[in-house]
């Protein structure tokens, strides 16, 4: 048992480190280090432009989409090399946020189902950041139950005509292409009438509107489709086979190992170490210590769980299911930590201004943003279902709509 690289890994790490050291946009390092909770803002630069420049440089140096084949703009690297790269890329990895959905989900789906022509045309540009992709799955009435989606695609000659609405689309406003799942047959049960496409986001009839979120920010979009024309050549997989195509996409989403999840613990530990209350330092209080200790072992538990997965990759094995716990643990933790930090501040805990009190608004922001961590990318409840069914082998939910034609499924609760 040890934490050391193998000689090959050490050599790869050294090469990566040297390249990053020589090429990374160091002028943004300080700003990137400060931003937590996945939100990145650069004071005087557009985050997407800076990200594109870094991605392009990486592609030229052979460091983009590491695990992809070289012919599509990747490096043909092993999974462990990808993890090592992420570790070495460090805070600059935050700049890759606009490309993650493309690299992690859309690209692999095109790779699995696209024509050779489509792969040649789209994948290298996706890898180099020249074109950004978004994923158009969720709808107002289809979140966890994404197979209940209603955006319609109807065949007209060699084209498909799309009408409907998607929601929670990250980056739709700066994306060039989108991966779109639609309903092509409402007369069959819901999983059977779906078809996957990709499209040019500048197509006529596509309208992107930002969503104002509960935390006051705008990071996601609604996307409306009005008679949008998509050529049949941009279909991925067979007509009616969209559900199994989407599983490829989502499976890739969950493969991201080594991605560090924010738990809020380091911030909380520092906060409690410095916060003076009427009874002394917060960290000297028994109740606070008990909570801190419980969060500490969750944070360390997640860290060492990911080390176990990395070790499996290093041996060329498939990691076990342990990593499925990550977001489930981290999401609730963020929310609990934010709530308790504000409790410690007492009446002043309500202030959100950066100048106010010791927390400088960070826990207040965390509180307002944390609900999304428990919803996006699989709600806590869906994640528990996944653990129960795929890891523990418990039966799936009884699905009352399984064999019912989609257009006969009730659409209102009462």
């Amino acid at each position, binding site marked *: 048992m040890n934490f050391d690289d193998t000689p090959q890994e050490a050599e790869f790490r050294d090469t990566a480190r040297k390249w990053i050291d020589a090429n990374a946009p160091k002028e943004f390092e300080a700003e990137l280090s400060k931003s937590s909770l996945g939100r990145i803002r650069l004071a005087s630069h557009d985050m997407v432009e800076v990200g594109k420049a870094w991605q392009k440089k990486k592609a030229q140096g052979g460091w983009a989409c590491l695990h992809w084949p070289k012919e599509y703009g990747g490096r043909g690297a092993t999974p462990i090399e990808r993890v090592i790269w992420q570790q070495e890329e460090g805070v600059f990895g935050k700049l890759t946020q606009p490309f993650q959905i493309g690299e992690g989900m859309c690209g692999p789906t095109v790779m699995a189902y696209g024509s050779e022509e489509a792969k040649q045309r789209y994948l290298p540009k996706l890898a180099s950041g020249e074109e950004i992709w978004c994923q158009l799955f969720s709808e107002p009435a289809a979140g966890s139950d994404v197979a209940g989606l209603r955006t319609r695609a109807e065949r007209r000659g060699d084209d498909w005509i799309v009408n409907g609405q998607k929601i929670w689309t990250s980056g739709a406003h700066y994306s060039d292409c989108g991966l779109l799942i639609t309903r092509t047959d409402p007369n069959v049960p819901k999983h059977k009438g779906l078809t996957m496409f990709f499209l040019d986001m500048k197509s006529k009839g596509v309208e992107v509107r930002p969503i104002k979120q509960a935390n006051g920010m705008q990071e996601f979009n609604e996307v409306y489709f009005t008679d949008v024309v998509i050529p049949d050549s941009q279909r991925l997989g067979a007509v009616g086979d969209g559900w199994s195509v989407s599983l490829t996409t989502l499976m890739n989403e969950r493969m991201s190992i080594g991605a560090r999840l924010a738990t809020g613990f380091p911030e909380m*530990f520092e906060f409690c170490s410095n916060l003076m209350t009427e009874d002394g330092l917060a*960290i000297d209080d028994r109740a606070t210590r008990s909570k801190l*200790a*419980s969060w500490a*072992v969750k944070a360390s538990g997640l860290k*060492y769980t990911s080390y176990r997965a990395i070790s499996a990759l290093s041996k060329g094995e498939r990691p076990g299911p*342990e990593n499925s716990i990550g977001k489930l643990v981290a999401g609730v933790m963020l929310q609990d930590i934010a709530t308790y930090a504000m409790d410690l501040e007492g009446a002043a805990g309500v202030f959100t201004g950066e100048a106010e009190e010791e927390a400088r608004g960070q826990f207040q922001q965390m509180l307002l943003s944390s609900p999304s961590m428990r919803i996006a990318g699989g709600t806590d*409840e869906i994640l528990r279902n996944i*653990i129960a069914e795929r890891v523990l082998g*418990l039966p799936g939910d009884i699905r009352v709509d399984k064999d019912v034609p989609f257009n006969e499924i009730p659409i209102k609760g009462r």
Partner: protein
Amino acid sequence: MNFDFSDDQKQLRDQARKFLAEKCPPKAVRAVLDAKAPYDKQLWKGLAEMGFLGVAIPEEFGGAGAGHLELCVIAEEMGRALAPVPFSSTVYLAAEALLLAGSEAQKRKWLSAIAAGEAIGTLALFEGKGNPSPQAVRLTASGGTLNGVKKPVPDGAIADFAIVAARTGSSGRETDVSLFLVDLKAGGLEAKALTNIDPTRGQAELNFKNCKAEPLGAAGEGWSIISRVLDRAAVLIAFEQVGGADRALEMGRDYALDRIAFGRPIGSFQAVKHMLADMYVSATLARSNCYYGAWALSSDASELPEAAAAARISATQAFQHCAKNNIQVHGGMGFTWEFDCHMYYRRANAMALSLGSLSYWEDALIDRMRKKNAA
């Protein structure tokens, strides 16, 4: 990175699991639970023959000379099987104290006896309620004799020898505490078994009356040795807890698959599935923290105090959580004497207190993290 047990160590785990499945089925645990015997002597003998008792004891003292990673995988299996033997008191506490502080002669005599299954050892630290602390040690030692009362002493009524923490000074500092080794069969004390929530692991009161004792380690070093022993034992007991947590989770899962209510397996209800998923989360976090503890223990890393506390807290929480919800998944049957659920519930809650309570370790973890941050 190779943050995993080796193939040999995993093989040893399988071997231990197979051995315990055969020699320590629930029926064997119940025999001790029902007070038919104070511990399972046959099993103890078998563990010695398998080389498990001395796995981390050097060969020169009669052990297998493997190491602490090997001991960790065995500990996990002992916890999973609820082995009703004085393994933790003898191997994690007494043997570790001897390894850290024993003289050549003490090691030669007692470590080889432990490895051979011929001596049961324990650590007599507590004196009534409260957590480990040098101030709580009131039993006195003077002129090589001990006077005072220790309780609870794990496996104290069946032990052959004990490492005893005694007060040898009055400066108010931790150097007031020294350790002594007492041959419990040589007289000078009364041992009384006390009833406790987990009868499969005995607890006793030892009443020392002018009892002859030999020093273990240097005078005034007692507390420093105890702190190190507690950290080491914390990791090993955490592995037992993880083994127990995993088994309780499995029992709950299996029952949820078999039991039909409202016309379907209860494991198809989200309320039950989510409870089991949360148990899996606790058990996984605990296991990962324990792996880190195992690494720190086996490599004598400076991170051991922090790693041990994290493993201890995480594993205590996981075992308590899994044992309690295992009963809940079983419903009414889980509350019967006949079903095994309560044996895990008892063990989980007894173990949560065995080296100091959860809040004691929470306190310790925060202290240690602060110390590290300050450094």
